């Protein structure tokens, strides 16, 4: 049905979408910035790979273990760092991500060190990746629209008022952090079973930045915005192959522009809906749609 190139594009978009959705819950809805989510991706990827190769667990179970491990580590890390003020929290996540990378570099016996871990079976087909992405979106959507997700938005808007309305701010922030780590770990496990060979360098600070940039570009506080952001960030370089080397440069410029021109991102603080789109088009037709 799809050729190898198309299959690869679908997998890469879907895998990144899962990680970005986690990031979106953490950054877009809770206003916590983490520059360490690639670290959770790599924990998920290595755990799933080892479960698959060494322990011979079936693929879904291996991916589940990867996600669970990432969530567990986030729970431990979050217990220590979640009370820190926003900027300190961000730095602690950045340090964590780099620690994980270096750790996997040095544990040669288990992870193959800098040369990477190979021999992972190919299991993440386009169909699997797409199914997981849809599932991830539905679960994130339900989460965000539940009292748990609403508590996160409340914390983002005003921590003091959130607490005064019965919301346990520390606990909710930790939940958001663990949620984003589980998603990153899920994405990592899938990615490992697509690439078949993973190295610690795949999940470096650049990858963490890319996740944040995608979330900001797509729009904070919007899951559909995150889908849009992922499509833009992952697909544009495929269409402009020659410019692939400059992609980080373009992302950087794009983010600066977005923050200056449209601080809420491409699609911030609202969700795409069919009825909304119809209304918008009607309004455009009447010629008074200037406020979009």
């Amino acid at each position, binding site marked *: 049905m799809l050729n190898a190139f198309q299959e690869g594009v679908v997998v890469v978009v879907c895998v990144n979408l899962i990680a970005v959705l986690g990031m979106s819950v953490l950054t877009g809805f809770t206003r916590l910035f983490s520059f360490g989510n690639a670290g959770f991706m790599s924990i998920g990827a290595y755990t799933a790979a080892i479960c698959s190769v060494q322990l011979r667990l079936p693929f879904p179970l291996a991916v589940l273990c990867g996600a669970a491990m990432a969530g567990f580590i986030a729970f431990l890390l979050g217990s220590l760092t979640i009370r820190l003020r926003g900027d300190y929290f961000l730095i602690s996540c950045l340090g964590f991500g780099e620690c994980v990378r270096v750790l996997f570099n040095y544990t040669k016996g288990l992870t193959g060190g800098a040369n990477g871990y190979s021999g992972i079976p190919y299991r993440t087909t386009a169909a699997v990746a797409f199914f997981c992405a849809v599932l991830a979106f539905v*679960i994130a959507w*339900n*989460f965000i*629209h*539940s*009292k*748990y997700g*609403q*508590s996160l*938005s*409340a914390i983002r*808007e*005003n921590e*003091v*008022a*959130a*607490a*005064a*309305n*019965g*919301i*346990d*701010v520390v606990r909710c922030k930790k939940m958001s952090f663990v949620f984003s780590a589980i998603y990153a770990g899920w994405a990592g496990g899938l990615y490992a079973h697509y690439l078949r060979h993973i190295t610690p360098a795949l999940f470096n600070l650049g990858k963490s930045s890319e996740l944040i940039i995608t979330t900001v570009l797509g729009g904070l*506080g919007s899951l559909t915005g995150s889908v849009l952001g992922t499509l833009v960030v992952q697909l544009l370089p495929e269409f402009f192959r020659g410019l692939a080397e400059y992609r980080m440069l373009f992302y950087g410029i794009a983010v600066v522009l977005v923050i200056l021109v449209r601080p809420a991102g491409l699609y911030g*603080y609202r969700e795409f809906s069919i009825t909304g789109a119809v209304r918008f088009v009607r309004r455009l037709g009447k010629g008074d749609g200037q406020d979009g």
Partner: protein
Amino acid sequence: MADLLTLSNVSKAFGGVHAIDDFSLSLPEGAIQGLIGPNGAGKTTIFNTITGIYRADAGEIRFAGEDITAVQPHQAAQKGIARTFQNIRLFGNLSVLENVVIACNMHAGYHLADALLRLPAYRRAKAEAEEKARGFLEIVGLQDKAGERAASLPYGHQRKLEIARAMATGPRLLLLDEPAAGMNAEESRELVDFIFRLREQFAVTVLLIEHHMDVVTNLCERCTVLNFGRTLASGSMEEIRKNPEVVAAYLGGDEA
């Protein structure tokens, strides 16, 4: 009547500033009591200490017979203490309805698994919370604004929304920090009626900080006057108005 809230010899200092100093207060269940005093007297600090935003340096706070001196803010809310803020604190980017729904969520009985899988318990509780929230919007007359962004409301409506949100947590005690600030005489009179109606309908006890003396006089049976973190006088409105110290320190100017 039993006391719902008692503060005994509570103190709170910031560096060298004794914001509240050996302060005591008892609030009978069902009362509407005033807390007045000049700027910087420590009124808001008392609210912040009751609700766990600040931890008292000394003294004890009891609510419904329970020691709440060391509770966290969210625990104070869960025990039944709701409040509004002097400088309004809404969830600005969220809709008017969501602001109140979030307060209703405190009593929404479903678990994470129900939510992630959209089980019936979740859908039912969510619908209930929304309906309840609409009810509270109706009480403050904001039912037509449910879909608007909270931050886009005019100032007076924002104050009403904050009260609706506080009431939606189902409190036994409501702390209002200058609810009539920025209101004209007509709006202040409406506010007085509104607070009386709240007490009637929800049997809520009210402690109110207010600079508008007409509001305090019309609403409160009793009143505590604060100056430099200490109680200057406490008693019925009649006694307060006749107290020479109070007249000198506080009422002097605008009663003349």
